[in-house]
């Protein structure tokens, strides 16, 4: 897809915040609390795409993402009778999905640091490459980031968690979260830059998932 078309299509889908921010009608919640299977399905259908997409972005693996969404949804729907409505429903579900995904990431992959050159932070006159990239290239570049770097980048930029929250969820420090956002952005920029992408074919990742 040409870049201009992809950008136009992208702008149509732009949202101001997390796609999780869906309000569930109180009547649907009330029916779900009573165990109405159709209401439970309505809730599942409302959140299946944001939940699965989030899990997929964090884990980078279709089967693992399916498993996380299945487990998170099952726990949530079983406990829906105890939802008191004093916090947004979507926030409750999103937190469960994030926790499940991070747990899986931690369980299945040891995370080890490798050195990556510091981002020099120099502003460029050129437009950011992700503004020009089509969806396929951006997807591909994102997939090439190390899992934890990609997760931190996604949680920060898309889900709008703070560095403090990300630090607590990942068991790392605030500065770790900040550095991952900066280095991940820089790495993404390089991966999307045609002039640099060939060089990065041989480059080591900033974080490596070890078996």
């Amino acid at each position, binding site marked *: 897809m040409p870049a201009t078309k992809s950008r136009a299509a992208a702008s149509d889908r*732009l949202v101001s915040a997390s796609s999780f921010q869906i309000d569930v009608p109180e009547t649907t919640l009330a029916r779900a609390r009573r165990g109405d299977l159709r209401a439970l399905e309505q809730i599942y259908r409302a959140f299946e795409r944001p939940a699965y997409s989030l899990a997929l972005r964090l884990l980078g693996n279709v089967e693992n993402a399916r498993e996380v969404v299945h487990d998170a949804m099952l726990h949530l729907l079983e406990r829906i009778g105890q939802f008191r409505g004093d916090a947004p429903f979507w926030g409750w579900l999103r937190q469960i999905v994030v926790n499940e995904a991070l747990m899986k990431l931690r369980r299945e992959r040891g995370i080890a640091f490798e050195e990556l050159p510091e981002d020099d932070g120099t502003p460029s006159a050129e437009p950011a490459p992700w503004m020009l990239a089509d969806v396929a290239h951006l997807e591909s570049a994102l997939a090439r980031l190390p899992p934890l770097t990609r997760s931190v980048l996604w949680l920060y930029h898309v889900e709008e968690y703070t560095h403090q929250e990300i630090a607590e969820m990942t068991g790392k420090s605030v500065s770790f979260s900040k550095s991952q956002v900066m280095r991940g952005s820089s790495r993404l920029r390089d991966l999307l830059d045609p002039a640099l992408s060939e060089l990065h074919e041989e480059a080591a990742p900033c974080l490596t998932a070890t078996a």
Partner: protein
Amino acid sequence: MSDRDRMTSAPSLADALRALPQAAPQPDLWPDLAQALAARRRRPWRRYALPAALAAGIAMLALAPLSTTTLPPAVPTQTAATTKADTPPTADAELAALHQRSQALERWIASATVAPLDSRDLMAAVEVEDMIGLVDVQLGATRGDADALPLWRQRVTLLEDLATIRANRYAIAAN
């Protein structure tokens, strides 16, 4: 990077990432989920059947004094007043303290439910809450403070367990 920086330094990256298409799990997860939900509703019959049976028993015991001819010998028939007289003063004090502690814990737990729990804690919490429900049913059947005291001790212990679960919402991530 502060939240203000988030808005100024790389807003286009956030927009570009948000604009990526969403996906749905394939094949559809709902049939499995519906089956699992239905199975779990059937399986833990004891969770609901036991309290229900106890509640039914309580109702029968409450009516028993009206027909003493059919009352089994083991059924307690003493009044609350006589039980009160049999209860040592120290037990009264302990019971009052347990009531107070129980109320404080319940208030704390109610305020802590804003924080989302992870799935493992959710599972643990539901088990503890069920046990508290069972204790409450039993408390409804007691005829005096002497019977109630061990149950109130158990209730406070369970509430403390629940409070611990609520307080540890980030424990897994921190491990």
